[in-house]
């Protein structure tokens, strides 16, 4: 077979998951920022900036799950059963937050605080669970005879709790810079103030994870610190520093979209760093994308559809963001 189907699918799934992380990242970030904003009109404006797009954003998560099952059924079955409890928590968080998104506008005054809390708590729980799942994924899973053989709580470790916290901060960065772009007035000023310490926290989290991972996983250390890799991969940490500097600098200037775009770039770099560390394993520490691949009949059949349809999906998504472009102001809808 001339084309490397597992490689192509690994790229498609990585792309889909990255789309999910950055797109649902900024709308989960808005829930994470809720406790720092008290004015009810400001809160409504915050929710309105993402209300028209959030459920489209979440469809990327459904694609990630389905495509993983299609292309790497072994990885789907092992990773999901190993991460059973964090995934149930994540889905629970997403459900509460998803309905709260909408119910908070219709609830009576007496019930509105309940749905505000459900929105914030749901966002925190979903993000924390995703971050914990990420940390557990980096740490790897115990596999015997093609099935997960570890315990129900193996995902819980200081490292995974730390990555959980890290993702909360990262989504807060996406959320705050998104709001800098989409709002103005006092809310925008507030978000500019919040975004600065959050940016520094994200940099600290990236630095700590970048040290912690190679220290506890010799294979990751070998990947980054051997020659000639260290030369090839050196741009990643350098660009991380540059992106952080650019976010902080543009936050001080009168630019609106720039901090968000640099925040997306920073997250992309973090994501790439993880990919470099783990490549080519889809079930760390030792099962590669080729070991876990579905039969070529499954990968090829699905690939035809994916390559044809994904460009259309990207086109609608762009169109939908275009329709709802521009600043959102207090008491203002999209009509």
């Amino acid at each position: 077979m001339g084309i490397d189907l597992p490689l192509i699918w690994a790229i498609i799934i990585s792309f889909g998951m990255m789309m999910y992380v950055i797109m649902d990242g900024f709308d989960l970030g808005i829930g994470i920022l809720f406790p720092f904003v008290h004015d009810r009109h400001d809160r409504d404006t915050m929710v309105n900036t993402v209300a028209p797009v959030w459920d489209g954003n979440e469809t990327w998560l459904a694609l990630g799950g389905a495509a993983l099952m299609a292309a790497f059924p072994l990885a789907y079955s092992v990773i999901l059963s190993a991460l059973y409890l964090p995934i149930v928590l994540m889905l629970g968080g997403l459900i509460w937050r998803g309905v709260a998104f909408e119910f908070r506008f219709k609830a009576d005054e007496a019930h509105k605080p309940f749905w505000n809390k459900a929105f914030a708590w749901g966002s925190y729980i979903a993000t924390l669970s995703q971050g914990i799942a990420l940390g557990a994924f980096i740490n790897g899973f115990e596999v015997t005879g093609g099935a997960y053989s570890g315990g129900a709580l193996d995902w819980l470790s200081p490292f995974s709790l730390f990555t959980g916290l890290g993702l909360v901060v990262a989504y807060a960065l996406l959320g705050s810079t998104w709001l800098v772009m989409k709002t103005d007035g006092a809310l925008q000023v507030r978000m500019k103030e919040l975004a600065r310490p959050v940016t520094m926290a994200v940099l600290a989290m990236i630095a700590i994870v970048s040290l912690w991972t190679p220290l506890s996983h010799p294979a990751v250390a070998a990947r980054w610190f051997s020659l000639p890799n260290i030369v090839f991969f050196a741009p990643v940490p350098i660009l991380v520093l540059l992106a952080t500097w650019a976010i902080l600098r543009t936050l001080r200037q009168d630019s609106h979209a720039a901090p968000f775009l640099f925040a997306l770039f920073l997250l992309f770099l973090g994501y790439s760093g993880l990919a470099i560390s783990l490549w080519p394993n889809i079930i760390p520490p030792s099962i590669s994308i080729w070991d876990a691949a579905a039969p070529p009949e499954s990968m090829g059949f699905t690939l035809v559809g994916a390559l044809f349809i994904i460009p259309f999906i990207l086109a609608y998504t762009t169109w939908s963001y275009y329709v709802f472009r521009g600043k959102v102001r207090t008491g203002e809808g999209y009509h």
Partner: protein
Amino acid sequence: MFGLTALELARIQFGFTISFHIVFPAITIGLASYLAVLEGLWLWTKDTVYRDLYHFWSKIFAVNFAMGVVSGLVMAYQFGTNWSYFSAFAGSITGPLLTYEVLTAFFLEAGFLGVALFGWNKVGPGLHFFASIMVASGTLISAGWIVASNSWMHTPQGFEIVSGRVVPVDWLKVIFNPSYPYRLAHMVVAAYLATALFVGASGAWHLLKRRHTRATRTMMSMAMWMVLVVAPLQIAIGDALGLNTLKHQPAKIAAVEGHWESKPGESIPLILFGWPDMAAETTRYAVEIPYLGSLILTHDWNGRIPGLKEFAPEDRPNSTIVFWSFRIMVGLGMLMLLLGVWSLWLRSRQRLFGSKLFLRFVVMMGPSGLIAILTGWYTTEIGRQPWVVYGVMRTKDAVSNHSALALSVTLIVILVMYFAIFGTGISYMLKLVVKGPEEHGPEDAPDESDGQNRRPARPLSAVPESFNPGVG
């Protein structure tokens, strides 16, 4: 929990989450098409009653759609979390079909839903109608893929087993497996029927409250036409699916009929009621009609079907459950047929909106379509047991290695959450129904664009009304 094994808890968890889920997509499929029809009639006739009905039902659609999305996300992950051996074994077939569903249906619905719900004053009528049709098509395409995946688990073909896992060899055979056309038709028509009954009951409820507006009469009348046509059609499709099941899954039919053994030279009676006893291998208290079983099941007066005793005890589905779930579905189907015929008779005497007895019957039948969908799915899924992929993989070999404790904890969390959230959502939908359609004259176009509560927040915020959802 309650002495249940991990396998039983995993099955309860799946059954509970999918039962809650299926109700929403069924109504989504029906309402999406109904909305497209209403909008088409509005553009064609310029009769404002269709436009007003469109706005009324699109609010209810929005609430229902959101609940379908969040409850469906759980399903996409549950195959991996709870049924990891199934996913590792057959993910090479289930996975591609689900991926095609996400790519061709979910994104299509999400992409055009915003315009359909909030774009009435933003885009031209033609583009808006196109968006409504795209949403309706998305729901049908979605049903097409997911029913293909499910049908393959009932009548698998087009694959080989290589080193302990399924390898698809012919995708056309995988998708167009022998039971697929019947199951797809049965499900889509069930969705239309359930929606027609729900819409009809909403109209009848308002008519009983003496709200004789053009909108309430029109929705009631349209729904009754639909029931009249679709109820007999569904019975015919169900009969064809029954014959197909007899050919491919005879044990399921024997269990559904509570039929234990076929004696030489005797035809099969139809057991109307009884209590199939799995341990004693007999159906107790059976009320039988001679010959009718043969006639219905084989379309032959002396036809024969295998009895449950011809299958090894470990290969038998639970007859007690499927015997009754099937009878509930069929009984409701007969009532739906009666409803359709009765409506035609009243209509011919110009009394469709006048008979209180009939209107009460229509209101009572409101949830019957959804109950029939649930009991129908219980019949076919429990009837497939003990197999997850019929004749290929047993359910007990498909389940993940979770402890009963882990499953009990997650099950309790899911039970509490689902009842609280979806209970709230359903009560919210019913309150919208009770509010009734608002009627606007030709110059008085509905204004969706003012006030803090009137966000175009997709998808639920198509609903500007403020009321108390009753959780907290």
